[in-house]
């Protein structure tokens, strides 16, 4: 490599700088956001230390919340209940949209459907089971397994 390769005319260097070193205007707000994110990231490196304490506190808070929830009175029933009896879901071959609708309505009315309605099998009968019954109803052919 020759000496010439390690030097360039000033004009050329200046023009190169003008072309490839364009200044980006300062933006205090953006600086703040960048620093904020960076400092949050910095904290991740140390998170184990302070999270152990925070974890205990949150667990205690969760326990309190749980107690409150356990003492919450159940939803009051309305007189309409008697008008609508859910019964059991039909066998798979006879499931249609009314199956899902019945369950949805029963849930809206605060009824407690039998475990047979637990389409998902999570021990809780809710809107997710309604969707599962509805999806079953509209399958062109049963079974998604290739």
């Amino acid at each position, binding site marked *: 490599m020759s000496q010439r390769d390690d030097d360039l005319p000033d004009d050329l260097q200046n023009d190169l700088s003008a072309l490839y070193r364009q200044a980006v205007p300062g933006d205090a707000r953006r600086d703040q956001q960048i620093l904020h994110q960076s400092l949050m990231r910095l904290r991740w490196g140390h998170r184990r230390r302070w999270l152990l304490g925070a974890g205990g506190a949150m667990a205690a808070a969760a326990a309190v919340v749980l107690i409150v929830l356990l003492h919450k009175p159940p939803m009051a029933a309305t007189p309409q209940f008697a008008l609508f009896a859910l019964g059991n879901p039909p066998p798979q071959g006879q499931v249609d949209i009314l199956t899902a609708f019945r369950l949805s309505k029963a849930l809206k009315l605060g009824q407690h459907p039998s475990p047979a309605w637990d389409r998902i099998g999570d021990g809780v009968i809710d809107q997710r089971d309604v969707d599962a019954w509805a999806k079953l*109803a509209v399958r062109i052919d049963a079974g998604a397994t290739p």
Partner: protein
Amino acid sequence: MNIARTFIFAGLLLGLIAAGPAASEFSPFGYAEVYIDAGPAGLAAYQVEITAADPAAQIVSIEGGEHPAFNPAPYYDPAARDHNRIIIAAFSIADVLPHGRTRVARIHVYDDKQSPGKLHYTIRLMAAGDANAQRIDATASIQPGEQP
């Protein structure tokens, strides 16, 4: 005679002009409106199976209906492997339900063989229910929509 020939010629010409645009207006896209007539009962749930007569037709989208109770897009089989056939269904627990004939859904169709606007569809009502989720007598119909 010359006048008559002129009229005939002009008539043919007008006919051609009229036919020209019609011939060039073929669009492979169309849609069909799905109606349920539940009579006086309020319609709270429906399920229908729709088949386009042309096996080459492809259902490309499903749209909800006009009444707020059935405005969301209905349930359907996402796999929908039979392109010209689909089962759609919806229910509503809204207090205000449609009575009489109401458009519950719209299917959007593609067919590059024949205009979906002229396609023949069959529709089979699989279920219809009232606000108490009791089965009700209803009729389902499907009608190709106007070209946009």
